[in-house]
């Protein structure tokens, strides 16, 4: 049984929209050319494949299913739980919690405890973990070998899967030869090799070790970091959906009609952008909190509440971030409306709305796309900062910002608990870096100035 939240619906709506857009682009030569340069670019293709991997994980996490809870006795209970497909795939590390901190690949806990040994004697030692290295009888000696063996096995599996994929691709390609593949496809295949190997190694190790350790309440850090991908993507993507219609319509109207329309729209965006963004978000979130505390009946489950807050955050971020694009589009429209083809259309009596739709809009779309990709990375980073000030996503939901926020005092511990922070920063870094590199390639391909 599918059981989706509001943001899930929007994510899938967005996905369908993007697919339609891609299908639409395929038929248009003037759009295919710049995209072709993106695909031929090595950096562009590698970052795109990393992005697609993040996207896939995010989508899996957005596909939520409702199913009966499995009891320990093997029977199913009458109560149901909602799990995403990603949760099911990650079951071993989702269920394999510990008591408290444990270092990456550790087999003993972070803190000493009093443990009763076989003879009934009390001992003060580091207890063994429930999951981490529990299958080893003599971990001090066997652990390194076991990790190496499992990693190698994973590497082998990754290469095998990749080979299968390559032969499939070759089988369906025109002349069944590797050399005939385009440069873009070759780069894509090689970055997939890397991704497959990493995934397979992780899949082999994860059921036996906490690869990135566990956090204060013993939850697997890798699980948290992977679950946070969805939040990052949702914030980046949904904010764009909120912002685009406002920015595009107002920007075009202001530039095209000028006069009092222009004055009014300029006034609106100057006013909005003069309010410091963080403070506007803080004010709006504070107000939303007041509203939620006073209307608890609207939000029945913790997930509902967290989801509403995420949606609201996207709305507010969208409301504060459309001004930049709007200003850009206004300036561009001012230029385009003086172009010969627009004047010709006016002389021929084409209605103004039709001119906007047919002649102006397609000519500013590249600006829209570049801005969306550029803003995306900024939004992912902003989420962490906002969560740190407690005006970001709900504290109960997984996000890199929440991971950083909840572990900000861990660097002061002795020994240092570095893994939660590092995991959040590394995941965030790889997503943002991929987006930034991709944005650069896209901008170079679409920016008309870069061609000369």
């Amino acid at each position, binding site marked *: 049984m599918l059981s989706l939240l509001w943001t899930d619906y929007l994510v899938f709506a967005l996905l369908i929209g993007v697919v339609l857009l891609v299908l639409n682009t395929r038929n248009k030569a003037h759009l295919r050319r710049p995209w072709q340069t993106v695909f031929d670019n090595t950096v562009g293709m590698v970052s795109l494949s990393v992005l697609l991997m993040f996207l896939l994980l995010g989508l899996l996490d957005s596909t939520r299913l409702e199913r009966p809870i499995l009891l320990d006795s093997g029977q199913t209970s009458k109560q149901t739980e909602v799990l995403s497909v990603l949760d099911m795939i990650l079951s071993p590390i989702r269920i394999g919690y510990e008591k408290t901190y444990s270092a990456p690949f550790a087999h003993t806990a972070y803190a000493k405890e009093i443990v009763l040994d076989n003879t009934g004697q009390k001992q003060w030692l580091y207890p063994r973990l429930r999951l981490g290295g529990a299958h080893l009888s003599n971990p001090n000696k066997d652990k390194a070998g076991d990790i190496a063996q499992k990693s190698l096995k994973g590497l082998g599996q990754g290469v095998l899967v990749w080979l299968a994929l390559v032969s499939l691709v070759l089988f369906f390609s025109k002349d069944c030869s590797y050399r005939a593949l385009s440069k873009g496809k070759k780069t894509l295949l090689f970055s997939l090799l890397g991704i497959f190997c990493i995934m397979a190694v992780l899949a082999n190790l994860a059921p036996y070790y906490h690869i990135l350790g566990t956090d204060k309440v013993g939850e697997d850090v890798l699980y948290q970091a992977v679950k946070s991908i969805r939040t990052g993507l949702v914030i980046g993507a949904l904010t764009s959906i909120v912002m685009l219609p406002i920015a595009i319509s107002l920007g075009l109207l202001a530039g095209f009609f000028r006069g009092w329309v222009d004055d009014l729209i300029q*006034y*609106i965006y*100057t*006013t*909005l*952008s*003069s*309010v*410091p963004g*963080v*403070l*506007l978000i*803080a*004010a*709006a979130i*504070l*107000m939303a*909190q*007041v*509203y939620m*505390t*006073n209307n608890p009946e609207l939000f029945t489950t913790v997930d509902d509440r967290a989801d509403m807050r995420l949606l609201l955050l996207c709305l507010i971020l969208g409301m504060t971030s459309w001004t930049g694009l709007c200003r850009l589009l206004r300036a561009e429209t001012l230029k385009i409306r003086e172009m010969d083809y627009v004047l010709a259309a006016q002389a021929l009596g084409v209605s103004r709305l039709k001119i906007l739709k047919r002649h102006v809009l397609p000519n500013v779309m590249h600006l829209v796309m570049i801005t969306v990709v550029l803003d995306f*990375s900024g939004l992912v*980073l902003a989420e*962490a*900062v906002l969560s*740190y*000030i*407690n*005006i970001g996503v709900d504290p109960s939901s997984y996000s890199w910002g929440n991971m*950083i926020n909840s572990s*900000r005092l861990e*660097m*002061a511990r002795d020994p*240092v608990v570095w893994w939660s*922070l590092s995991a959040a*920063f590394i995941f*965030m*870094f790889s997503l*943002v*870096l991929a987006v*930034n*590199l991709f944005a*650069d390639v896209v901008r170079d391909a679409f920016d008309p100035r870069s061609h000369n």
Partner: protein
Amino acid sequence: MINYIIRRLLYVLPVLIGVNILTFVLFFVVNTPDDMARMQLGDKYVSQSAVDNWKQQRGYDLPLLWNEQAKGLQQVQQTIFFKKSIGLFVFDLGISDNGRDIVADISQRMWPSLAIAIPSLILGVLVNITFALLLIFYRGSYLEFVGVFTCVALMSISGLFYIIAGQYFVGKLLALTPISGYAPGMDAFKFIVLPVFIGVIGGLGSGVRWYRSLFLEEASKDYVRTAKAKGLSELQVLFKHVLKNALIPILTGIVVILPLLFMGSLITESFFGIPGLGSYTIDAIASQDFAIVRSMVFLGSFLYIIGLLLTDISYTLVDPRVRLN
């Protein structure tokens, strides 16, 4: 010139009114003062008299826009809008929800904010311009490619990382500076070094890229080619032509953020425990002190608009081509 400035000042007024109405709607219309009082006093189990008491102490017990019980002008004056919003225009920010004078707090707390913000800005601009010029100087070489990639990588790192890593390595492991804290007067120096250093590093990626794009645009112009053709060395062209002409956008880019330096940096100040306006705002958000947040929203917008105004004026001063019409 005076005429131009006056006209621009008059344009500021409607924007400030807009901001004022926006904050009023956000803070008093979306949720009534009753809701705020309930939330502050503890959700459901609050008696109405406690709520009324809370509202009366803070002056929220008046009607929003129109007081029917009063007479004459008082009908407008004895309202939340008049008392809480109109006062902002003359910087009568009132009293915070926990009873302190906001104006006094702000004038005391803005100095630590400036002590961090001004050195960060100056050092940051100098370092960024130096690196950007280096990248331009080595244009087309392997070094440039590495430099540009490093910029993208630096940009992709969360600002929180720079702070946490800096505090850990410089403050804790090497013990070169205190991890956090602040002292007035000259003692402040040792507390300021680390935040300023981290501020410069954190802004390096995007800053160098921004200045590089400015220089690149300037370097592709005809007069640069002419200068090279007549035999000037690369360095001479870079400093005498490219840098000099790019100074206009650099200057105006700095002028626009100058007033906002007063507001301080939210994150840096709260991490380093600096008693500036940034941490003041953060504390207000955390303790849900609506009066302070409202004042800071207005102050921030006011400073931003002043920044825009200064930019326009500096444009006309620096660049004679910009006509005053």
